[in-house]
């Protein structure tokens, strides 16, 4: 069983379970991973990102503690890493007010350097606003200097991104909001296949401090272990001063990447 945190009573009713721990080696430390709104923002395999962070923490010799934060929950203390996913438009409406009420907490954490991964819907809401096709504006929490405009065009398909930090990143996009970056953020990379943030500038995702924001599902982290390990290393270094990696076996990830890269758009 996942260790439960007393601050998150709703954790019991949601969430997949981690496989049982089988390592007898002493833990190098505990990392608290918070899933943001898994109840309403969990479409397209967002659990995969949380699972990969938790399992790779184990494979590196650390103990993951998986927490969940849903609408109305108390916000857990001492969070080391945050992961948030996409949702349907209806899911975004459900979390909207709650997310705005957590704006200062999340901003503080972001500026303190807490590593975060936000995908698709939460990427958009971490930005300044989402303006729908019909012109109504959903405010975001403005951690990322990005803005998103709803369109009639759905950007769908396999994506390959080349990133200066992480090498090639493989994933799958499915969104109709188009995002443009302001001067306060860097793109995660440029698209070699697929569309990315919008249909004009060939950029995908955003980087700000230790936040990685992206449109890519797939799920993103399983086939991109370099990204997963960046988030893990950052979380561990912030908490324990240094990170001693383990030796995860990434041979399936390598092969899955090779085959995915050859698939049609």
């Amino acid at each position, binding site marked *: 069983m996942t260790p439960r945190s007393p601050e998150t009573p709703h954790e019991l009713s*949601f969430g997949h379970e981690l496989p049982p721990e089988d390592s007898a080696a002493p833990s190098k430390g505990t990392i608290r991973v918070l899933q943001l709104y898994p109840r309403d923002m969990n479409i397209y395999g967002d659990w*995969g990102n949380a699972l990969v962070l938790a399992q790779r923490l184990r494979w590196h010799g650390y103990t993951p503690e998986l927490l969940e934060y849903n609408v109305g929950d108390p916000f857990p203390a001492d969070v080391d890493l945050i992961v948030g996913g996409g949702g349907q438009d209806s899911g975004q409406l459900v979390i909207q007010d709650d997310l705005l009420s957590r704006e200062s907490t999340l901003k503080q954490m972001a500026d303190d350097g807490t590593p975060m991964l936000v995908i698709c819907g939460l990427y958009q809401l971490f930005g300044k606003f989402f303006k729908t096709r019909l012109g109504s504006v959903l405010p975001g929490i403005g951690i990322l200097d990005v803005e998103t405009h709803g369109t009639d065009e759905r950007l769908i398909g396999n994506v390959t991104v080349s990133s200066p930090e992480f090498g090639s990143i493989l994933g799958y996009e499915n969104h*109709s909001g188009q995002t443009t970056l302001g001067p306060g953020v860097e793109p995660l990379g440029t698209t070699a296949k697929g569309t990315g943030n919008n249909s004009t500038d060939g950029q995908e995702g955003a980087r700000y401090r230790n936040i990685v924001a992206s449109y890519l599902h797939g799920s993103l982290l399983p086939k991109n272990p370099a990204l997963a390990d960046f988030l893990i290393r950052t979380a561990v270094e912030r908490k324990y001063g240094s990170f001693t990696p383990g030796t995860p*076996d990434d041979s399936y990830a390598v092969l899955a990447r090779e*085959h995915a890269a050859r*698939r*049609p758009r």
Partner: protein
Amino acid sequence: MLYFSVPLGKFVRRVSRLRGGGSALPGLVVEKIDPDFMRRTLSTLPLGVAVVSGTNGKTTTTKMVVELLESQGLKVFTNRTGSNFTRGVAAALLGEVDWRGRLDADVAVLELDEAHAVHFVNKVPPRYSLLLNVLRDQLDRFGEIDKTAELLQHIASRTTGTVVLNREDPRVARIAQTLDGPEVLYFGLDDSLLSTFPNDDDMRAAPGSPVPAAPARPAADVVLRRVGADDADFEYDGATVTTGMKLRGVYNIFNAAAALTLARGVAGARGTGTDQAGLLTALSKVAPAFGRGESLVVDGLPLELVLVKNPSGFRLGLKSFPAAGYATMIAINDNYADGRDMSWLWDVEFDTLRDGGVDQLTGSRAYDMALRLQYDDVAIGAVDTEIAPALAAFIRGGEGKPKRIFCTYTAMLAIRRELSKITTVEVVS
């Protein structure tokens, strides 16, 4: 023009068959030269048209409805070849009408893909519609689940007689509130079975966790009360009946409740009474449709094919067909018909395969599946993206155990093609 369209369409159909072509061309021809052909022909049916749509289980459910209605002595026209789009219906009609364009049937029962059903009902308002579910399936095609629900809502709004809805799927049940014309009937599940049917909203609920208190649910015409090893209990007309079932898998049997609801509605509309015993006998004899949990025999051992198309279906498949005692293969393709996005594999938990592991993985995305299993600590035998050698190795191995293959749609077609070389497999044209 009108008088020539049917003979010409039939002629094109015959020629395109001779040339080994698909079913779309003759449909296209008749649609072009006689756009009213389909509506005109179907409007002559005394009991009208019934449309079956939804994400999961359309093919098996349509087959059940057809067999149930045939047990009532009705002549049923259906699009049996799996052409579940408008042009396919027109082509199937061409095969059935006589040279003067007359269709000898009492009722049409048509399986239609959600998006194509919308085009169809705009041309031919159905008397009945049966809406099964809205699940996360090929979202890369429809965009969003809520969008799919809107497509089903449109089908319901065009229905002139009776709309049959899944009471347990919130997005489908909600359609009732938007209707004021047609009668609404529901099919439903016993409370004790609700937890075996995760919908995408509570997909993440931990196994065994209590079902959240649901709002009061409307009364259902047919309720599935219990599922046994080879039988099931259905409740309708205030009584519970037990019937043997050849169908396997709870989700197929829930769709039997759907089929019963629709068939009772159609048969009841004749006003000559319904042969209740005949309905149940027919239901007990329904065999799974092509690839939907069917059982073959290979080298004297059972081999089951379980089609998995989306996270809910895969979860149900794993739950319905326990792994113990079986050798297991998983075949994942990412062709258009399978859906290109692999994200869905991460919404399925594979812990039930942890004890025995998976013997063989195959398909264009075999390594995505391997990666998924690695993160659930499930042991993997061999991986080969090529289906033919993987299947051969799987059949050779397995230590005399019965075998089970979970496969996506196009992987299933490839597996059946290979199997047909070594055993007898029903071939669907």
